[in-house]
């Protein structure tokens, strides 16, 4: 155990810090759930890529820097410290990217990873279907083999970023006689293909953060099949592991939010506040730090060859509840002003950011497997309680 960065790691931090200081846009970009904001965030991805900061853990050949996980954490810390824009391509870089790295052919890696890292192609995910939310194996969307192509028919829902993205990845039933998690294939589909219709679904804040995608005889090349036909389930599970696991919500995000919460608290602590507010502020700061420490521990273990296990379900519960707690506490501090989404007041951007963050935090315990499902997983796989 040595909880100190090496000189190389410290140099690396300073390199990012300097680069971000020069490149992070001074004005906050519009939400990437608007057309304008999406375009601005796409530009930002390209800027990041121009400095080879698109995805630092990837090999240099794919536009990365071959960093290890500790360096990735340092990158994230500096990224949030700098207030840099959210990553519009997180479906690509955090979910599909690692999947391709593990299961993609050299040609697929060449084709897709570079375009992802360079900010050229933005990705949506296509897991859920109407009637199959938490029950991901109940997939009915079909991909029928036709020579070197698949013909896709059906519907996906809750597809994040699909409104403005270029591609979607997801699971499709390639064996029509199969059921549940058998006979599924992991396929990449361009959203501009003939037969694809995207219907935006506005979320709590009114912006179309996800969409329904309708596939009507959509023809895609079998070159877009990841792994073998019918192997989609296990590949998707590994992707979902990434999602729940280390990379989806880097601790720096919550540390930065809890730092801002402490600052807000310092400003307002002489007002009449909820009697529980001191406790809540302390708890939020502690918990954000605990999440960071836990991630460093996991990263250290993985660097020594360990694998992520069911403890990743603990992560999902922890950060999603922490995120709600941080934002609830901030709204308590804002009192009667907390409900205001827009106004001409000088500090409105602070209020709006907390309110929007609060709305977004509501989705945390739901997506990427509800927290109820995570608790089942923890009880059964981590603790060993009987399934039924």
């Amino acid at each position, binding site marked *: 155990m040595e909880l100190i960065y090496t000189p190389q790691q410290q140099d690396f931090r300073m390199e990012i810090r300097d680069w971000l200081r020069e490149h992070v846009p001074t004005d906050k970009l519009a939400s990437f759930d608007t057309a304008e904001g999406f375009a601005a965030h796409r530009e930002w991805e390209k800027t990041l890529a121009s400095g080879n900061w698109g995805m630092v853990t990837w090999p240099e050949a794919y536009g990365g820097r071959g960093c290890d996980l500790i360096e990735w954490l340092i990158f994230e810390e500096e990224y949030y410290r700098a207030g840099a824009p959210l990553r519009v391509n997180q479906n690509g870089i955090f979910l599909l990217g690692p999947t391709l790295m593990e299961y993609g052919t050299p040609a697929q890696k060449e084709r897709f990873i570079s375009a992802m890292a360079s900010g050229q192609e933005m990705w949506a995910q296509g897991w*859920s279907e109407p*009637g*199959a*939310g*938490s*029950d991901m194996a*109940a997939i009915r969307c079909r991909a029928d083999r036709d020579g070197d192509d698949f013909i896709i028919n059906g519907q996906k*829902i*809750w597809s994040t970023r699909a409104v403005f993205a270029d591609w979607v990845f997801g699971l499709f039933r390639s064996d029509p006689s199969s059921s549940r998690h058998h006979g599924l294939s992991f396929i990449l589909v361009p959203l501009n293909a003939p037969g694809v219709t995207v219907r935006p*679904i*506005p*979320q*709590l804040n*009114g912006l179309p953060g*996800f969409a329904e995608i309708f596939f009507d005889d959509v023809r895609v090349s079998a070159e877009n099949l990841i792994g073998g036909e019918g192997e989609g389930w296990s590949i998707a599970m590994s992707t979902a592991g990434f999602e729940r696991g280390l990379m989806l919500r880097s601790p720096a995000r919550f540390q930065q939010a809890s730092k801002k919460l402490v600052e807000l608290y310092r400003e307002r602590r002489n007002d*009449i*506040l*909820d*009697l529980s*507010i001191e406790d809540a502020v302390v708890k939020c700061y502690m918990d954000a730090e605990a999440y960071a420490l836990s991630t460093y521990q996991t990263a250290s273990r993985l660097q020594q060859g360990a694998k992520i296990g069911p403890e990743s379900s603990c992560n999902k519960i922890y950060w999603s509840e922490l995120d*709600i707690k941080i934002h609830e506490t901030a*709204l*308590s501090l804002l*009192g*009667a*002003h*907390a*409900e*205001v*989404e*827009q*106004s*001409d*007041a000088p500090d409105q951007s602070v209020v709006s950011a907390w*309110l929007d963050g*609060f*709305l977004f935090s*509501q*989705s945390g*315990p*739901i*997506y990427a497997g*509800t*927290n*109820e499902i995570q*608790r089942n997983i923890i009880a059964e796989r981590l603790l060993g309680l009987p399934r039924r």
Partner: protein
Amino acid sequence: MDFTFNEEQYFFQQTLKDFLTDNVTPASIRRRWDSDDGFDQDAWRSLCELGTSATQIPEDCGGLGLRFDDIIMMIQACGQAALPEPLVEHSFIAAPLLAQLHASQPSERVADILAAMASGEAMVLTASMINPYVNFAHSATHVLLQFGDDLHLIDSKDCTLTHVTSVDRSRRLAEVKCQPNGTTCLTNGRLGSELWQATLNRGALANAAQLLGLAETLVQMAVKHASDREQFGKPVGVNQAVKHLLADCAVKIEFAKPVVYRAAYTLAVAPNRADWAVSHAKVSATEAAQLAARHCIQVFGAMGYTWECDVHIWAKRVWALANEWGDVGFHKNRIHEWLVQPKALLGPEFTFGRRNIRDVEHID
């Protein structure tokens, strides 16, 4: 000692509830969201015709002269329906403020405005210093303005409004600026102070009752969804985790109800000694409603996070009303201040206050 409502009180509630069920639907609320002023004139007129605006107005001014505990369940019904129009603000906050003034210091001017409020001819809202914004100020004919202890009645065309956007699209908030002067002043000093104190309590309790109603509807919606929606071949509501999320809400709601009703009674019979009861009600109802919003969204899953699903009509109202007329911190602090006073009368025999106990030794 009787802690039940009578038939008449249930009848008032049911009449309003029936009207709201038929006329204030999620679809009609969304139509208001898309309109400029967010206000449905027809609904407002019907609500006034139903007599709701007259309930708190003295009989000699053309009203029904009901007590606050007579109408508390009507406020709850407004919450259940997530009614956008400021019926609560007009009928159950502004009207009793003027009625209380009229009882202490009768005047023709106040009698006239009360009569106009009862008929729906006037729409009066309250600009208390505890609230930074007034909801639907642009639709009001008059505003009751707090200025220190002063109470001013100001024509709305003499007000300057600065609009802000609430997270709850049903609410249309504005900062209200105007020039109070000698002619606009209705009263001041000790009476003014008492009136505003009672108004803060009525406002807080009115929000508490609405929050209770909002919580009830949220749980109902979640129960219906969990009974209908299937996952893994069964309704999601068979899962114990889902059951317990909603059972926890039910417990909070069940125990917030009597607290809200007790506060309504206290406001009716002893408005100047209602601080504790009202703050208790606001805290309990807010916590019940916030839990219901959280758990209801959770039960709905991804759908609960969408604009299309009606859950957020209720959830956002919860988040907004929680902080109006004093947030939870304000009200918890009032209770805390009272509890730490050595002369506070605590213990099982004081549930309904000292006037019920003959041999109280301490005087508060």
